[in-house]
């Protein structure tokens, strides 16, 4: 069936609510900035009104209550909303949820899911455009899933709500909410922690996650059409757990790795991927690992200024060409 990303998430929530009475929602405006998000979630919230806890503007308190509800036997889904709001909740998200299972000596699971909309959304400026996956990636104990397609949006949310017993940051991207794909709900889902080869190729590997996946695929199409270059595109799907193996195996085949990353360049998620390849794929590399990332400046408001910073298919393709022209001296 054809589903957009928001519909896929809403379907996953609906089925999870139906399957497990311990699942409930804290907050009721999931993906609310997007028309597709509102259209998908409004009927869900109406149908399950007794399973939706209305929430005031208290990110810190709400994040803690989701943790506490998980400790008392529930499987809550908390809508933190725009990922930048997670900074309001940081003490709970980074210093409570991820530590509890470890600190309890492995006795206390925390099956809570935190819904976040990450990314440069357009006109969000510096305070509403943060991509927080790299910051959270440095917090052991938190699972980070970043579905790039409606199919993964569905499967990964169901996994977080019904199967995972650890705190999960479910990070969707503002620019993906309306993307529509054919989704086979009956097909077995790729396990969490496995990256997907979204496009096969022989000339270089583009290691992408979240919104970078469709942009990398667009770049790959352009490289093929205009230059006869076949890029392999990997959708990492989750950053924790991180599938280093698939990435390394692909680079063993292509010899080149380009990492587009919407995080800022310094200490972004791409830095961890690049460091892994620099070590584990060293003997296969024909060129240095390259990154195309958001420059190390806050995100500006003006559309002209904002556009100048965006990691586009054009930038990804042109960096790929530069890499393919690399000559070892």
């Amino acid at each position: 069936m054809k589903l957009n990303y928001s519909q896929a998430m809403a379907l996953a929530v609906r089925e999870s609510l139906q399957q497990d009475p311990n699942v409930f929602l804290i907050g009721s405006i999931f993906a609310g900035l997007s028309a597709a998000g509102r259209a998908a979630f409004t009927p869900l919230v109406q149908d399950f009104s007794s399973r939706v806890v209305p929430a005031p503007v208290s990110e810190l308190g709400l994040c803690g209550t989701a943790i506490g509800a998980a400790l008392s036997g529930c499987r809550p889904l908390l809508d933190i909303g725009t990922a930048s709001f997670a900074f309001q909740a940081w003490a709970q998200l980074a210093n409570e949820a991820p530590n509890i299972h470890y600190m309890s000596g492995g006795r206390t699971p925390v099956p809570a899911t935190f819904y976040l909309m990450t990314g440069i959304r357009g006109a969000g400026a510096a305070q509403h455009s943060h991509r927080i996956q790299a910051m959270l990636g440095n917090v052991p104990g938190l699972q980070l899933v970043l579905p790039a397609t409606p199919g993964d949006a569905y499967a990964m949310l169901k996994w977080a709500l019904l199967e995972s017993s650890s705190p999960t940051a479910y990070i969707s991207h503002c620019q993906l909410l309306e993307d529509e794909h054919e989704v086979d709900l009956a097909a077995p889902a790729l396990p969490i922690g496995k990256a997907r080869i979204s496009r096969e190729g022989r000339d270089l590997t583009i290691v992408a996650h979240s919104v970078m996946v469709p942009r990398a695929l667009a770049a790959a199409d352009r490289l093929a059409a205009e230059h006869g270059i076949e890029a392999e595109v990997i959708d990492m799907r989750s950053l924790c757990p991180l599938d280093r193996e698939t990435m390394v195996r692909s680079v063993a085949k292509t010899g080149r790795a380009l990492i587009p990353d919407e995080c800022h360049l310094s200490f972004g998620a791409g830095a961890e991927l690049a460091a892994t390849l620099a070590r584990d794929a060293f003997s296969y590399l024909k060129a240095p690992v390259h990154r195309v990332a958001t420059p190390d400046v806050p995100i500006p408001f003006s559309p002209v200024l904002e556009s100048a910073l965006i990691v586009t298919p054009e930038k990804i393709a042109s960096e790929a060409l530069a890499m393919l022209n690399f000559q070892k001296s």
Partner: protein
Amino acid sequence: MEDPVKHQKRLENMLRIRRFEEQVVRLSKAGGFPGHYHVYIGQEATAVTVCEQLEPHDMIFTTWRNHGHLLARGASPGRMLAEILGRATGLCRGKSGTLHLADKEIGMPATSAMVGGALPIATGAALGLKHRRSPGIVVAFFGDAALDEGAFYEAVNLAGLWKVPILYVCENNSIPPQKRRRGQFPSSSLNAAQLIDVPRALQIPSEVVDGADVDALCGCFRKLIAEVRTSASARFVEVRCTRWPGNVPLWPELPGGEWNLEWAFGAKPEPQDLAAWAEKSDPLLNYLRGLLEAGTLDRDIAFAVDARVRNEIADAVHFAESSPWPDPAEATRGTFAAERRT
């Protein structure tokens, strides 16, 4: 008159905490474990009288000053001490230490050592119990400094909006501003006339009780916990404690050595500040004097209870000190919980 056996049990439960904490101070000073720690001496009556009112399905959240709450709820003193010493047999396999002691089996699944950190979590646990239609309630213990944190305000507001069954127990052991000196453990600095003005502004029924008066504490918690259960809504209580002199310095000390049962029979402790505290503000001595005066307890029974508790704690110390260190490989285990099978 209430049943004397019940009083002996209560006395024993309070003494267990005090004797345990004395060993914690001794072990720290002897180099038995590294790092900072906090003891509950002087506040024992609060934990014990709260836990008397609780049922097995109730949950408790505590802080870095957690030993008394765990002991009152029935945690094993030996496994607690083993955890404080970082041993493999510790309640949390050496992962938590003194600051984050937790015991899921007794309804204390997670302990935050961040000021105010547990308040939203405790409130969420109450929300979860309500969602699951559990008969359980939540008790959140915290210090006065938690009211300096925004987390307190958010948590209490949510509890009021959502109407969840939780008792907030603020154990106010702050040092009055005029008595504060540099180098002491910090006290709260709240710009409210009294702590209960804050939860009351959020329409949470709130009371104040004397933390040195066991009868008052019993009556207060019996009433408030019954109210939380029947109304399934939040209550707040400020327990006013006078800080034990050993908790005034940044690192706890035992001024006057171990607490002496003879102080209940007229002997005077040294130094002066301890004597003043023992005369009026020690809940244990106040309780003992009351029981002796009423004839509910005699000297022999009091000493027998203390001897029993001392033996129990000596065994706990022996268990902890003779426990093995964890396998270093344990350091990288247990970050994530196993997935549930559906």
